[in-house]
């Protein structure tokens, strides 16, 4: 079950800031704890930057979700960029092709409850994360 989604284009640095602000607002609305809000906004910042830097821009969709027991937030990051050739390597701490620290993808995965990647070389990458209220 899910409510209406909110979408943002990610084309500039400023859009990454907007993603953080939207995720923060929705995190407060679903009453995530302060630490969980911080973790989710941080993960969203890492992944939105990846969408911009590696994916060449794309779209972020933020949705309030619920199952029988809990409320949560699902965020989807989608780009039509080059895709990820070696996913295991990309998820390794410290590995980077972009001159960063190599913590964005692997670190973001540790900060959320559910993490799924759909990627194909030449077709783009879609990453879905979910954080549930405790």
């Amino acid at each position, binding site marked *: 079950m899910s409510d209406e989604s909110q979408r943002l284009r990610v084309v500039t*640095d400023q859009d*990454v800031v907007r993603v953080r602000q939207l995720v923060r607002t929705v995190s407060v609305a679903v009453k995530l704890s302060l*630490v969980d809000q911080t973790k989710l*906004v941080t993960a969203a910042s*890492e992944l939105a930057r990846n969408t911009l830097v590696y994916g060449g821009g794309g779209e972020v969709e933020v949705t309030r979700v619920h199952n029988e027991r809990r409320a949560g937030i699902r965020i989807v990051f989608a780009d039509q960029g080059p895709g990820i050739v070696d996913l295991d390597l990309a998820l390794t701490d410290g590995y980077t092709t972009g001159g960063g620290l190599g*913590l964005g993808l692997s670190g*973001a995965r*540790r900060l959320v409850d559910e993490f799924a990647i759909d990627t194909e070389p030449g077709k783009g990458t879609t990453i879905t994360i979910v954080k549930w209220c405790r």
Partner: protein
Amino acid sequence: MERVPVLKIGDILLVSIQIDMEDQVALQLQEDLAERIVATGVHGVIIDISALDIVDSFVGRTIATIASVSRVLDAETVVVGMRPAVAITLVELGLSLPGIRTALNVELGIEMLGRRADRDDELFDDDDEPGQAVVTTP
């Protein structure tokens, strides 16, 4: 583009980050600080992040770079005011900011830099490893 102000107070440059920085703003701050350290000849930099509700790997890396550049320019950096939730998230993200000195608030940061200055005066004559002299905490 917004810019983070850099204030000089005595022998210290104080930066209080009050906005959700775009990546370019963080990079600009890095450049501004390096220039101000050289222009003013200060020996300490305090970066107050108490207003930041997240620090992601980009901002974390920028802070680490500022600290390294400052050290090369003979200034010591102390990061102050990190929120508890930010600390928990940073460590879980995998970024523990090794080699960066921290204090709980601006006042304690200033004290920390003051002690460093005193110690440097004592060590001035026989200090053959300047990098080592400033790392320890009392």
